[in-house]
């Protein structure tokens, strides 16, 4: 496009990086938090602060729960446009039941998918979900929002914009641009190895910001690349739904062949069937895994074609001891409890796929690695944030001289995307501890607090970045850093006051989910406070050129 490749790549890196950087900031930050989503859940729902539990007895605990389930009211509302005629009030046919747990879950998420009567698409399914205490089978209230796994985590991959998967598409495009930015960034810089050791904080802001951008980009280059790529791959079927559209006939053919080969019925028989002891099937599955030299817990179980003669039960192993997201599934005839099939060892393609997706989704039990993931995600945030700052620093003097407002607007949006996002996340945690426990729709209010705080931070960011138009440092950064520090400390104190779980107690008990979140919040508060102080000090000594002029001015005053 320009006269040489480097200029073209620099243009691509700058402009696509800038525009999609705001999305990538959200994706990286909430992706990093999602590494500890279950721990954030514990912090936010004090009733669930107990030890992780294995999959409970199906026959005694899960079966009565499943049998009492119906689709969620919200799902029924959403499904109204998918039926011809009136919406059913009762959903008698359960297509599937499922329960999923990990080594970090004290509570158990269960789901049931029902046939949707009068559905336009006969294969349509309407879902019901519940969270239960696996020790008792007691259902936990619906409106306790799992902030980590139900808000921060989906924010990471869908921005919580669910209309026609729009958010997932935006994030997908941002991930593609991330890969493009990494390749174009490497082409622009060339001296890749040197970037690893170059950080000159003492130089002018523009130089040190670029050093930090290159350093964080290069140090974690493989991490950034693999995560953006595997993220795209995980949603590959959403972005390229070829098997459901253009090649649907081929996919249907495959499903028929598959059910012939596996012996797992693809359709209901239409004849009622019974359900034998699933506990016995779980025990048998565990026995078979042990015989293969990989003893483990049950992580996921499903019943398909519930109540039908074709019903079968699939039991999958929790993958705590490997990266690849494989379940070593064993499938049982629901009525007799006989094994129909054991999943064969993965093929080469499955090896690659489960490794990449497992690497991204981390079901393994390895706390050091988990912390490294968090660091990798935060390094990505630093890389993106310094990209914004470099954009502003590079242009602000020129823009000030020419009376342009571009740098100022970018700085305003950068403040909102970086510190404003932290303010929003922290406001949500504070709201979580302040809102009355019996408030109807409490989880909704927590989300309103999040978005309202972010909107406020955006307004503040746009307002308090005005000095950038005169090539000075925006006070918005220091002020929002201070807000971050105050909110983070407030969250820790509120957790203490409302639950009694102060750090002395959680640390003494070794209860790391809550202690870890509290310590992380305090660390963030300390860093935000130091950043605010450093920024204040800098803006006190305006710019380098003004500082150079200062002595002569004071001499002039003396004279």
């Amino acid at each position, binding site marked *: *496009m320009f006269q040489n490749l480097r*200029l073209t790549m620099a243009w691509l890196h700058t402009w696509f990086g800038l525009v999609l950087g705001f999305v990538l900031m959200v994706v990286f930050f909430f992706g990093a938090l999602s590494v500890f989503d279950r721990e954030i859940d514990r912090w936010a729902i004090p009733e669930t602060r107990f030890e992780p539990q294995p999959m409970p007895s199906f026959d005694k605990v899960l079966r009565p729960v499943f049998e009492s389930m119906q689709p969620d009211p919200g799902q029924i509302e959403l499904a109204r446009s998918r039926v011809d005629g009136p919406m059913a009030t009762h959903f008698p046919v359960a297509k599937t039941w499922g329960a999923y747990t990990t080594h970090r879950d004290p509570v158990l998420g269960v789901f049931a998918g029902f046939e949707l009567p009068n559905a336009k698409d006969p294969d349509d399914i309407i879902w019901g979900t519940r969270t239960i205490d696996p020790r008792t089978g007691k259902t936990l209230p619906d409106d306790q929002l799992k902030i980590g796994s139900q808000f921060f985590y989906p924010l990471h991959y869908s921005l919580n914009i669910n209309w026609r998967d729009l958010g997932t598409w935006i994030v997908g495009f941002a991930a*593609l641009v991330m*890969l*493009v930015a990494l390749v174009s960034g490497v082409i622009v810089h060339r001296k890749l190895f040197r970037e690893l050791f170059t950080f000159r904080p003492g130089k002018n802001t523009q130089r040190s910001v670029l050093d930090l951008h290159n350093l964080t980009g290069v140090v974690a280059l493989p991490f950034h690349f693999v995560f953006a790529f595997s993220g795209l791959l995980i949603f590959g079927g959403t972005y*390229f739904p070829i098997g459901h559209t253009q*090649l649907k*006939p*081929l996919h249907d*053919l495959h499903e028929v062949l598959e059910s012939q080969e596996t012996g797992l019925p693809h359709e209901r028989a239409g004849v009622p069937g019974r359900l034998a002891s699933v506990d016995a099937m779980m025990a048998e599955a565990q026995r078979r895994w042990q015989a293969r030299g990989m003893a483990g817990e049950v992580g996921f179980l499903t019943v398909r074609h519930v109540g039908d003669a074709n019903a079968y039960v699939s039991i999958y192993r929790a993958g705590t001891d490997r990266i690849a997201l494989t379940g070593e599934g064993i499938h049982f005839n629901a009525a007799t409890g006989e094994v129909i099939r054991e999943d064969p060892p993965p093929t080469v393609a499955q090896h690659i796929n489960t490794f990449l997706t497992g690497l991204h989704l981390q079901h393994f039990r390895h706390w050091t690695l988990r912390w490294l993931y968090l660091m990798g995600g935060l390094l990505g945030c630093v890389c993106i944030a310094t990209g914004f700052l470099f954009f502003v620093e590079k242009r602000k003097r020129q823009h000030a001289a020419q009376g342009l407002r571009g740098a100022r607007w970018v700085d305003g949006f950068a403040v909102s995307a970086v510190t404003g996002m932290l303010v929003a996340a922290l406001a949500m945690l504070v709201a979580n501890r302040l809102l009355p426990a019996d408030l109807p729709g409490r989880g909704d209010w927590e989300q309103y607090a999040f978005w309202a705080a972010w909107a406020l931070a955006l307004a503040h960011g746009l307002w308090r970045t005005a000095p950038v138009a005169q090539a000075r440092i925006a006070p918005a950064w220091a002020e929002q850093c201070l807000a971050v520090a105050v909110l983070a400390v407030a969250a820790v104190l509120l957790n203490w006051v409302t639950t009694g779980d102060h750090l002395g107690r959680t640390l003494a008990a070794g209860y790391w989910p809550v202690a870890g979140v509290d310590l992380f919040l305090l660390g963030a508060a300390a860093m935000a406070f130091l950043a605010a102080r450093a920024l204040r000090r800098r803006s006190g000594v305006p710019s380098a050129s003004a500082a150079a002029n200062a002595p002569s001015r004071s001499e002039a005053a003396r004279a």
Partner: protein
Amino acid sequence: MAAPPVSRLNIAVRIGAAVLGGYAFTWGFIALSVALLFAARMEFHDAETLATIVGLLLFVAAFLWAFAARSVAIVWTVLAGGGALMAGAATLVQRALT
């Protein structure tokens, strides 16, 4: 940087080629690869996985190429035309199989 000014239209056409052309090309590539690999008796989802992995890398390359190439007309021709051809071929393979 004394780069000669690039017209806004040229930039818009290149962005279109990178995003839409790149998508069409990737779609065609994945569809044709899945159809051919399935015809060669690979399991459907295995074929889909492999094709998607390679397809996504191609998308990144096509995206960069859309800006690096001298002629944007060639970019559009290759990406959109190639994508349509591959998608058409995929449908033909599917017809032969089903």
